[in-house]
């Protein structure tokens, strides 16, 4: 099918301000938007800069706005968009460095701020084997272990657009993953961090995060569970 692809362009070494380049191309409805951008690089304009790696939705490199909504470019097919006019822009709320590449540092700083790692100083089992965990205990936090840190959620969040100091949904998801892990001992610490000024209370449940998550994580639900744990002081 014939499509019209508009791509956000900005080269900091040449451009004063961003522009959109338009490409008319013949594509397969089963093509990924990432494929279209690769066609641009191969056949139209090789200077287009974007991040991509695994190309099937597990590495989290290519989160971008497609027709105004966050997706992984490798997980949205042309036919899913239901139109032959496709506009691709960088994710919103992080500084654009070049074309579709944004500065991810603030995002990873927020991630780091919630202690995203297992903390348990208790002695390991004497037999050197695994710490036991029932299937139910594992399922309690399994959903939030799926996060690939692509930033599609955080950059779809109205609270993050208006204040980049907000830790954002991705960081809360990763805190949730440890808070509700029966093997972790620092849930209280994380809840105190998330109870602060830039923590969970900035969430206004606009729900864009959950809609944007390419891994189908129930993000708003996870945030609500963290809010509840902060309020009750009980991790259950």
């Amino acid at each position, binding site marked *: 099918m014939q499509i019209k692809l508009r791509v956000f362009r900005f080269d900091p070494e040449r451009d004063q301000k961003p522009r959109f380049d338009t490409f008319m191309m013949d594509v397969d409805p089963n093509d990924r938007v990432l494929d279209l951008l690769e066609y641009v690089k191969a056949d139209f304009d090789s200077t287009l800069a974007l991040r991509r790696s695994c190309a099937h939705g597990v590495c989290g490199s290519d989160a971008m706005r497609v027709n105004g909504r966050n997706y992984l470019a490798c997980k949205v097919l042309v036919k899913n968009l239901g139109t032959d006019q496709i506009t691709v822009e960088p994710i919103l709320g992080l500084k654009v460095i070049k074309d579709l590449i944004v500065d991810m540092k603030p995002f990873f700083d927020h991630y780091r701020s919630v202690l995203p790692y297992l903390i348990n100083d208790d002695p390991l089992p004497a037999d050197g084997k695994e710490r036991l965990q029932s299937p139910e*205990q594992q399922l309690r936090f399994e959903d939030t272990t799926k996060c690939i840190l692509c930033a599609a959620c955080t950059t779809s969040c*109205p609270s993050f657009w208006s204040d980049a100091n907000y830790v954002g949904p991705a960081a809360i998801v990763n805190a949730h993953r440890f808070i509700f892990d029966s093997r972790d001992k620092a849930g*209280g610490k994380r809840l*105190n961090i998330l109870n602060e000024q830039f923590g969970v209370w900035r969430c206004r449940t606009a729900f864009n995060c959950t809609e944007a998550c390419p891994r189908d994580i129930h993000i708003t639900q996870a945030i609500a569970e963290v809010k509840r744990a*902060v309020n009750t*002081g009980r991790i259950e």
Partner: protein
Amino acid sequence: MTTTTQPEKVVVKKNFDQVAWTWMRYSAFLLIPLAWGHIILQDVVVGVHNITTDYAINRMANMGWKIYDIALLGFAFAHGMNGVRQVFRDYIHKPETFRLVSIILLVVWFLITLVGAIALLAIQPVVS
């Protein structure tokens, strides 16, 4: 493996935003009957064209309505002003500016609530 999943208890230091968040929700549950009742009665059923000063005075002086209106004043305006504070929280990033705005909002809230409260409490019915 049998696990009796005991909820882990942790200590979380109270935070103003947390209290405000909770306040917004609990006050909302109360406000819905109060505010809807008020607006349906005054704006729809009675209608501004049928409201006169005497009507207003008598209504405000009635003990039942007085309690109703005081509850409405207390909950609705505090809920609203905290909502405004949260909205500003999103857009104002400098802590000093935000502190200043919060203080202004607090003063405005206090003054207006005070004016309303005096009027409500002090009013006497007109005898006609």
